[in-house]
C-alpha cells in the first residue's frame, strides 16, 4: 500500500557505512531531505560483513512534509472524555511535534494528543465519532476489540474507503463489553500507529462490584520508538522496513512519554489498565517487586484472579492488573527480559525502565489490602463460558499454518537466517538482528496464513460462518519456516477463548480478541462468531500485517446489518 504522493526530496541517502554509529562519525542529514541512516545497533554487536553499503529497497520517508518540526503544535497530554449514550465526539488526526529523548520529533496525534483522548463510556452505550483526517496520508480508525457494526470497524476496502487527507468519516460505536479497548489506524500502522495514533476506550461496568475495590485507576499505554541522535529513523515509503521482525524501538514510552511517574500512599492498591501498542515488542512488565493480581484481559475478566510477579503483554493485548504498593519508597516499573544475542549465542538479562511509582509514608485510606489478597472467582465469567464447553473437545473447524516466504533478500541475510534457525526463541523480546531486520521490507518478505485444508493463503482465504456459530481455529506457528517468530493474532469483531496451547488445556479462561502464538506452538482458539459482518483476522505485528499476514471472513449475512 503506497502513501499518497509526498512532496519530499528522496534519493539523498548517505552511504550507510558512513552512518554507522560505531564505526564512523555521522554527518546530520540536511533538514529538508530524508535519507537512510544506519539503524542503531547495540554497541557490542558487529556489523555484518558485506552489509555496510546496503539500505532497504524502498525510499526513506519521514512525516511532516519536510516542514520545520517547530512549525507544528506541541502534542498535548491525553485528556479523558466521558461519553454518554448518544453523544457525538469529534476526533481529528493531525501532525504534531513531540520531544522524545531530547529531540523534537514530528508525530501524529488524535485531537493533538498523544495518546489520543481516553474515551470513557458506559457498557451498552452508543456513541458517534466524527473523524477528520488532517495527516498527510490516508487513514482509518479501527476500534480494537469492540464487537460492533462491521461498517465502522475501520478496515479499508472492507467496511469503508480510506479517509483521504482533509476528508471525514462518521463512525458509530457500540460498547457491548466491559473493559479496556483501544483505537488505532488500519492503514500503515507501522507508521501511523508508531507515530502516536493510538488511544484507549475504557468501558465502565454497570456494577461497582465488577472489580474488587482499588484506591485508584491508571490507564497505561506501553510503546517504543526507534530514534537515533538525529531523531526518528525513517520509515519505508511504499513498503514497511523491518518486515522480518517488526520495528523494535530503542526508547520505551509510557503514555507517549519517557518519564511516567505516579505518587501513591503506602498500602494503595492501584488498578492498571495496560495496553501494548508497540509495533512488535512484547513486554514483561515488573512493578519493582510489588505483588500483582491479574484481573481481566481483552474482552472479559478471568474466570479466576491470579497472583503473578510480572505481566507478559504482546502487541494489541490488554490486561487489567491490581498492584499493591505496601512499602514506602520508589518502585521502578521495568520491562525485564532475557534478550537474545545471536552473535554471542547467549541470552542476557536486559532491563528497560518504564517509569516509577513513589510511595509515601502516609497510610492509604481506605485500605484495600485485604481484598487485594483475596483472589476472586468470577462465576459470571464461567457461566458465560458454560454454553461453549460442549465445543471444547471437538476437532478444529479450520487449521492455519503461520509461515513466510521471501525473495530477493541480501544473500548474507539468507545465510544468517538459516543459521539462526538452529535455535529460535518461542517469542522475541528484543531485536537481535537490527541490521538484517531493517533491510527487509514487505517487497521481499511475505508473511503467510495458510489454510491447511484448502491451501489458500492470506486474503485468498474467504471463510464464511453462520451467525452464532462456534468455531475452533487451530493455529500452528511453523518453527521450520525461514524466520519463525511469535505472532499476536487478532480477530476483529468477535471474541475468542484460548482453549489449548500445545494440547494443554487452559483452565483459567478469559475472552480475548488478540493472543500470542509462540514459535513452534499449536494453539486452539474457540471463537464466538456472534457478530455478523465482514471481518479481518491478522497478526498484530504491524510489519507482518503489511507483509500480507491477514485474512478475511464473513459472519452471517452482513447485508442485513
Amino acid at each position: 500500500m503506497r502513501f499518497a504522493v509526498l512532496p519530499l526530496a528522496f534519493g539523498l541517502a548517505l552511504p550507510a557505512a558512513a552512518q554507522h554509529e560505531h564505526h564512523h562519525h555521522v554527518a546530520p542529514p540536511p533538514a529538508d531531505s530524508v535519507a537512510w541512516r544506519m539503524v542503531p545497533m547495540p554497541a557490542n554487536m558487529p556489523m555484518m560483513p558485506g552489509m555496510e553499503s546496503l539500505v532497504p529497497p524502498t525510499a526513506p520517508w519521514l512525516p511532516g512534509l519536510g516542514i520545520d518540526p517547530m512549525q507544528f503544535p506541541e502534542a498535548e497530554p491525553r485528556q479523558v472524555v466521558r461519553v454518554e449514550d448518544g453523544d457525538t465526539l469529534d476526533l481529528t488526526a493531525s501532525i504534531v511535534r513531540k520531544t522524545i529523548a531530547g529531540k523534537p520529533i514530528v508525530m501524529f496525534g488524535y485531537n493533538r494528543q498523544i495518546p489520543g483522548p481516553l474515551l470513557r463510556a458506559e457498557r451498552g452505550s452508543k456513541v458517534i465519532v466524527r473523524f477528520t483526517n488532517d495527516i498527510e496520508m490516508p487513514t482509518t480508525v479501527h476500534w480494537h476489540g469492540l464487537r460492533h457494526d462491521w461498517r465502522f470497524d475501520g478496515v479499508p476496502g472492507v467496511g469503508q474507503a480510506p479517509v483521504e487527507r482533509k476528508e471525514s468519516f462518521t463512525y458509530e460505536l457500540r460498547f457491548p463489553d466491559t473493559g479496556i479497548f483501544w483505537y488505532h489506524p488500519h492503514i500503515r500502522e507501522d507508521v501511523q500507529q508508531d507515530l502516536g495514533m493510538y488511544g484507549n476506550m475504557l468501558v465502565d461496568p454497570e456494577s461497582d462490584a465488577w472489580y474488587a475495590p482499588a484506591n485508584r485507576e491508571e490507564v497505561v499505554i506501553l510503546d517504543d520508538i526507534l530514534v537515533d541522535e538525529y531523531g526518528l529513523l525513517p520509515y519505508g515509503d511504499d513498503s514497511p522496513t523491518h518486515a522480518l521482525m517488526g520495528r523494535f524501538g530503542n526508547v520505551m514510552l509510557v503514555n507517549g512519554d519517557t518519564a511516567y511517574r505516579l505518587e501513591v500512599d503506602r498500602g494503595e492498591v492501584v488498578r492498571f489498565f495496560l495496553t501494548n501498542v508497540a509495533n512488535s515488542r512484547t513486554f514483561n512488565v515488573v512493578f519493582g517487586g510489588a505483588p500483582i493480581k491479574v484481573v481481566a484481559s481483552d474482552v472479559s475478566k478471568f474466570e479466576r484472579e491470579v497472583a503473578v510477579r510480572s505481566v507478559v503483554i504482546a502487541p494489541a493485548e490488554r490486561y487489567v492488573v491490581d498492584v499493591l504498593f505496601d512499602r514506602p519508597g520508589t518502585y521502578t516499573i521495568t520491562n525485564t527480559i532475557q534478550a537474545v544475542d545471536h552473535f554471542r549465542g547467549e541470552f542476557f538479562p536486559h532491563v528497560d525502565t518504564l517509569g516509577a511509582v513513589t510511595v509515601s509514608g502516609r497510610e492509604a485510606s481506605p485500605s484495600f489490602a485485604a481484598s487485594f489478597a483475596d483472589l476472586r472467582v468470577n462465576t459470571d465469567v464461567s457461566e458465560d463460558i458454560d454454553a461453549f464447553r460442549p465445543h471444547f473437545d471437538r476437532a478444529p473447524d479450520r487449521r492455519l499454518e503461520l509461515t513466510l516466504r521471501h525473495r530477493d533478500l541480501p544473500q548474507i541475510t539468507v545465510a544468517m537466517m538459516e543459521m539462526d534457525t538452529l535455535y529460535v526463541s518461542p517469542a522475541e523480546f528484543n531485536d537481535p538482528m537490527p541490521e538484517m531486520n531493517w533491510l527487509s521490507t514487505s517487497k521481499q518478505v511475505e508473511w503467510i496464513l495458510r489454510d491447511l485444508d484448502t491451501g489458500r493463503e492470506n486474503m485468498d482465504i474467504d471463510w464464511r460462518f453462520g451467525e452464532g456459530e462456534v468455531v475452533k481455529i487451530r493455529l500452528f506457528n511453523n518453527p521450520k519456516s525461514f524466520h519463525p517468530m511469535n505472532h499476536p493474532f487478532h480477530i476483529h469483531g468477535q471474541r475468542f477463548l484460548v482453549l489449548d496451547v500445545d494440547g494443554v488445556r487452559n483452565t483459567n479462561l478469559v475472552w480475548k480478541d488478540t493472543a500470542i502464538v509462540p514459535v513452534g506452538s499449536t494453539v486452539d482458539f474457540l471463537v464466538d462468531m456472534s457478530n455478523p459482518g465482514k471481518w479481518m483476522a491478522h497478526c498484530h505485528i504491524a510489519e507482518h500485517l503489511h507483509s500480507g499476514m491477514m485474512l478475511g471472513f464473513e459472519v452471517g449475512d452482513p447485508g442485513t446489518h
Partner: protein
Amino acid sequence: MTFATLLLVAAGIGPGSSVAECTAVDPVGPAYYAIELVTTRRVPGSYMATGTASVSYAASPFGISLAEDGSYALDLSIGVERLAAARTGTYVAWLTRPDLSEVVRLGPLDAEHRITGSTAWNKFLVVISLEPDGAAPGERWTGPIVLRGMSRSGKMHTMAGHGPFQSEPCATFGYR
C-alpha cells in the same frame, strides 16, 4: 560453492542434514523444543536407551509464561524408553546449567521411567544418573550419567571468530 552455501555447510544444515520437516499435526507439545536424551552407554542396560524431555509452558494467565526475570517458565515431562531396570541404585533426573554452575535435582524416575518437573532456565541440560541405593539426595549426581540432553537453545552458540565474523576480534567480545 557460493558463500551462502559455505555458511550453511559450516553450520551443518546443508544437504543431508538430519533436521526433520515439521508439519501441522495434532498438538502434542512444541516438538521443536523437545529435548532428545542420548545414552552414554556407560551403564549396563542402557545401551539402547532413548528418551525425550517434552517442554511446555507453565500455567500462566498470559500467552507465554515467563519468570519475573524474563526467563521462560517451563514444564518438563521426561520419559525414557528401552532402559533396563536398575540392578542396584536408582535412576535420578537432574537439570543443570550448561556450565554445570547450578544443578537441580528433579528426583527419581518412576517405575515407567518417567518424571515431571519445571525450570526457569533458558539454557539447560537434562541429566539422568544412576545413584547408589541408600544415598541421601545430594546437590549433584554422584553416580554415572546414563542419559543426557540439551535444551534446543543450546544450539545457539557464538559466531565470534567464525564464518562471516572470522575477521572480528574475538577478544573484543569476550572470546580468546
